[in-house]
């Protein structure tokens, strides 16, 4: 898109325009604030909750350090300590780190990209509320002594029913599985937001590094989280019904869990780190007053990190006895991932050198980050050396290492981000004086606590010990670490004082661009983002466009009001940011909120084995989603002029539309989940081939199941024709037939396995066969609900050849169900026959 030669809209704007815009984006007040869906409001809630979990898990950390201050301490009992260290890790990773960066994305991205809001505000709010309710209940299991105690990576067999009969492990599996679903919802929102709602002219090469990192972050969530979700499904099936996936004496394998967990767990580290690095790449140029050096190299480095991080999960398993040859590959990959980090570190240093770094509190936290993270990176290279890891693994050396990378790589940048971005959202800046105090306390405290741990580990102290004997040389070092931990706590306390004294969140009159930054989030901001949507001509539009802030605020740029009388944002093309259509986004509501609460209740009550109430909540959750969806997909409203002579459609279906993109990403998530399953199936076969059956004990060829899929596919094709031709009645009939055929196919397959005498609890193999059915049932259930919705929309005249998103979404997922069903049949019926023939 060519830059407009003059302002797209004439000034001054009619007075009523702004009033109308304000009215449409009006925020609910009082207790109704919880129904708000604006990215700023949800962003504040989200960050505040994540920070609350940081404090809570931090207190757990202090309890751990208090217990370990002296040898043979009896401050905490063994069982309490085991629950506390498990919760410290779990809460920090799942309830603080990932949600915190996701929250920063939700708060900052629309502002930074020049969008009025994220594309699915209610989905974002749903993700938050699900996390809020689920997280708080999960945390409070500690107060009832019912928290999990198997360590944050929950290795079976220790976490199997035999060795962990309590419900703590179930809380972990269902609670965390559920919270990850919320993270995935947020990731879909972020991917579509970053790719489709950027301001006109903001090509990918003009996109701020933070947005790049959030895009990669979300993409990694899409591919990494399904692996651990599958693992939690399998382990929960094992615990609840005795399907022996991880029990070696019954044809399972304990290491399967480790592969699945770390296939998620290692990318997880970069999922947390990359957005934090993105924040640093925003702060450094502003504080140095110059553009970022090596922008393109950094983007390449970020993408490379994303890829590499999926190839090194085995480096958490160097001591499991995996043959040296395969370890060599993972060792190489683990070292290679250091290079992209090196690129970023030197790019920041070069940026600092090319400008003059103002030593603000934010800058101090960035410098602290450079110091701590570099050290953590170096020890990371050390533990990537397999022979060194044989010694360091599972000791306090590793505890020190990952706190240097995670606290250094994520918490320091997060504090920098608070000090840096507060003026964009608050009526008052945070105090530079208190910020510097907080920094020095945290920085000195952190190094006092964690530097000695490298030594503690090397002289033999394993991690996860609730006490230790005196006289092994560990006493003094542990005491020093404890003192350091309390210094960190003092620093965090100073920060809290600063927040209370100075943070005054607002949607109308923030302090604004105090640092003279160049990116869009520093334009005057409102509940609707900027008054008009700017044209972006560089990486730092505020620096490169004269009077941008003034003209944007006066409404001189695109879409200065509301074109359709509802909340809107401009959708642009994914690469070049050419305006495509005006999308209407949803406003406040109750339905997504009750959907979130009931979904959380469903999972948590299921854990507590209150099945009937749980099912009731599940039904209420689905009903809420139906009500929520009824208000989605508004009817086409003609063309909308956004200024500069550009007139855009207000409705879009097919590959250009935001909902198509979201469904594709969701299918990728489901696909990644299923591929993790295929991996698990094949992996288990390599470990225990003996439990795979001979062809004569298999059920016959799945003729019925295949016919069901084929019939369903034909019905889908015909239903698509009916939508085009506007034949409503036939459409509803075909959807019904197609979904019934899909269900029948699955039922026929389960029946044939059962009929052949195969029972899920017999061996790892039989458990895998039925796990396939569980995964397919999950998808089929979703297709069923979507079909019900599409049929309802059609019956009420809301589906036609133009307004067809409800059907398009169903069709995409339906296609996915057919593909997964076919692949599943091929695997469970074909593979044993092939393996027998080998």
């Amino acid at each position, binding site marked *: 898109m060519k830059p407009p030669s003059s302002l797209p809209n004439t000034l001054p704007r009619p007075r009523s325009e702004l009033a109308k815009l304000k009215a449409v984006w009006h925020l609910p007040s009082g207790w109704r604030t919880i129904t708000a869906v604006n990215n700023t409001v949800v962003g504040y809630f989200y960050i505040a909750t994540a920070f609350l979990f940081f404090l809570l898990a931090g207190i757990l950390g202090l309890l751990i350090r208090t217990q370990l201050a002296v040898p043979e301490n009896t401050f905490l009992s063994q069982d309490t300590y085991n629950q506390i260290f498990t919760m410290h890790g779990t809460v920090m990773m799942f309830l603080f780190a990932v949600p915190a960066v996701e929250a920063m994305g939700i708060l900052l991205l629309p502002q930074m990209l020049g969008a009025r809001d994220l594309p699915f505000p209610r989905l974002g709010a749903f993700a938050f509320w699900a996390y809020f309710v689920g997280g708080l209940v999960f945390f409070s299991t500690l107060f009832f002594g019912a928290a999990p105690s198997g360590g944050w990576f929950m290795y079976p067999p220790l976490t199997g029913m035999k060795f962990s009969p309590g419900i703590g492990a179930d809380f972990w599996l269902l609670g965390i599985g559920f919270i990850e679903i919320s993270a995935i919802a947020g990731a879909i929102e972020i991917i579509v937001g970053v790719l489709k709602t950027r301001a006109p002219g903001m090509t990918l090469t003009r996109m701020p590094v933070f947005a790049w990192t959030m895009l990669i972050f979300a993409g990694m969530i899409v591919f990494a989280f399904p692996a651990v979700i599958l693992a939690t499904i399998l382990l929960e099936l094992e615990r609840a019904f005795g399907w022996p996936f991880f029990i070696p004496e019954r044809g399972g394998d304990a290491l399967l869990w480790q592969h699945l967990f770390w296939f998620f767990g290692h990318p997880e580290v970069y999922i947390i780190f990359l957005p934090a690095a993105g924040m640093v790449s925003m702060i450094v140029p502003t504080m140095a007053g110059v553009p970022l050096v090596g922008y393109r190299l950094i983007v390449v480095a970020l993408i490379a990190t994303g890829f590499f991080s999926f190839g090194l999960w085995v480096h958490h398993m160097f001591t499991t006895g995996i043959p040296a040859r395969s370890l060599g590959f993972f060792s190489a990959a683990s070292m290679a991932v250091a290079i992209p980090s090196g690129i970023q570190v030197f790019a920041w240093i070069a940026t600092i050198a090319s400008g003059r770094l103002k030593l603000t509190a934010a800058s101090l936290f960035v410098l602290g980050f450079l*110091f701590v993270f570099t050290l953590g990176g170096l020890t990371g290279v050390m533990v990537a050396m397999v022979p060194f890891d044989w010694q360091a693994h599972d000791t306090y050396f590793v505890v020190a290492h990952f706190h240097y990378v995670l606290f250094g790589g994520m918490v320091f940048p997060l504090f920098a981000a608070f000090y840096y971005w507060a003026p964009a959202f608050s009526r008052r800046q945070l105090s530079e004086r208190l910020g510097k105090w907080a920094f020095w306390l945290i920085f000195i405290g952190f190094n006092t606590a964690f530097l000695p741990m490298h030594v503690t580990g090397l002289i033999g102290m*394993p991690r996860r010990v609730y006490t230790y004997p005196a006289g092994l040389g560990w006493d003094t070092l542990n005491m020093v670490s404890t003192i350091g931990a309390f210094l960190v706590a003092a620093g965090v306390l100073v920060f809290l004082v600063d927040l209370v004294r100075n943070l005054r969140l607002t949607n109308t009159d923030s302090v604004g661009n105090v640092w003279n930054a160049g990116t869009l989030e520093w334009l005057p901001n409102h509940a609707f983002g900027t008054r008009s949507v700017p044209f972006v001509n560089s990486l730092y539009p505020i620096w490169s466009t004269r009077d941008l802030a003034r003209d944007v605020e006066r409404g001189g740029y695109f879409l200065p009001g509301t074109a359709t009388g509802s909340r809107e944002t401009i959708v642009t093309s994914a690469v070049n940011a050419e305006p495509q259509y005006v999308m209407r986004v949803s406003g406040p509501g109750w339905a997504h909120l009750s959907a979130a609460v009931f979904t959380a209740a469903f999972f948590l009550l299921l854990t507590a084995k209150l099945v009937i109430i749980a099912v009731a909540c599940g039904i209420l959750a689905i009903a809420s989603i139906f009500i929520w969806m009824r208000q989605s997909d508004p009817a086409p409203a003609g063309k909308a002029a956004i200024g500069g002579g550009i007139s855009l459609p207000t409705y879009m279906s097919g590959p250009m539309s935001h909902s198509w993109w979201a469904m594709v990403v969701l299918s990728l998530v489901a696909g990644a989940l299923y591929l993790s399953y295929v991996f698990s199936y094949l992996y288990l076969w390599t470990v225990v081939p003996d439990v795979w059956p001979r062809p004569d004990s298999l059920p016959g060829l799945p003729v019925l199941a295949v016919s069901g899929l084929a019939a369903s596919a034909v019905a889908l094709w015909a239903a698509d024709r009916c939508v085009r031709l506007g034949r409503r009645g036939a459409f509803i009939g075909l959807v019904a037939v197609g979904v019934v055929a899909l269900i029948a196919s699955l039922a026929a397959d389960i029946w044939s396995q059962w009929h052949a005498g195969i029972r899920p609890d017999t061996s790892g193999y039989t458990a895998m066969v039925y796990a396939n059915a569980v995964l397919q049932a999950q998808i089929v259930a979703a297709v069923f609900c979507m079909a019900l919705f599409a049929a309802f929309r059609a019956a009420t005249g809301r589906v036609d050849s133009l307004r067809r998103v409800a059907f398009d979404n169903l069709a995409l997922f339906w296609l996915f169900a057919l593909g997964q069903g076919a692949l599943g049949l091929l695997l469970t019926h074909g593979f044993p026959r092939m393996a027998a023939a080998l």
Partner: protein
Amino acid sequence: MNVLDPAGPDAGRLAELSWILFIGGGAIFALVLAITFFAMQGSDRSRKRLSGNWLVWTGGIAFPVAVLTGLLVYGLLLMGAESRPAEPDLRVHVEGRQWWWRVSYEEPDGSRLESANEIRIPLGREVEFVLTSPDVIHSFWVPSLGGKLDMIPGRTNRLRLTADRPGVYRGQCAEYCGGPHALMALEVIAMPAGEFDAWRAQASSPVENAPARGGELFLATGCGSCHTVRGTSAAGTIGPDLSRLGERRQLAAARLPMSAENIARFITHGQDIKPGNLMPEFRFLTADETAAIASYLAELK
């Protein structure tokens, strides 16, 4: 128990590697700090020089690629040194259990010599530890002798170690295994080969002269359903073999020093000493009975 104070060639190679990594890492760290300092505080000329893309290319790409390639090759060579095809001089089977170690020496005649929580090895001879677990994952780690290796249910891992300095080396379970994981330690005693052979020759025969009353009480109380004492009817395999308990330096997986008093305390108050351990407390025994059993066990040497 110190990675950097090795007592054998395997640990020695790892200690050498560690020093290389620490010194190299320290130097790189100092360099990065120095460059950052100059980027902030240097003269305009030196800052200008640091501000180009070349810094990213050299510092962020060329330098790490070179260093990491070197390290990788070194690491692979070291890993190669660990794989030795020849038969070991001695094979010791170690089974990690919640929360102790079953130890079983392979005798030259193919039989097994059972023990627990303490492993004697001959100096200068290569020992293969055959590592298994019947319950959850544990990890066998004696830092002074070499790296750790996990004990995984359903799998068998083999670790070769050699000691070339006499001494007692503490080891500890390194994979969290629930409950009192923190209190699951062991000791490896490296002794001259001659002494080791002599010890092994007599260790397999039963102890003759232990106090009779304690022995009878031991059997009458039912201790034999979990523990074995060679030469008696006590043949349980759920708990540690006690045939030569008095000979060991430590009690309850290196939780307490060995003494009759500590054995007595463990019998009646084991859950205070090692909370969560799987042995019930025998508080119904009188102090006198407990003392008799304890002194019997302490004399098994």
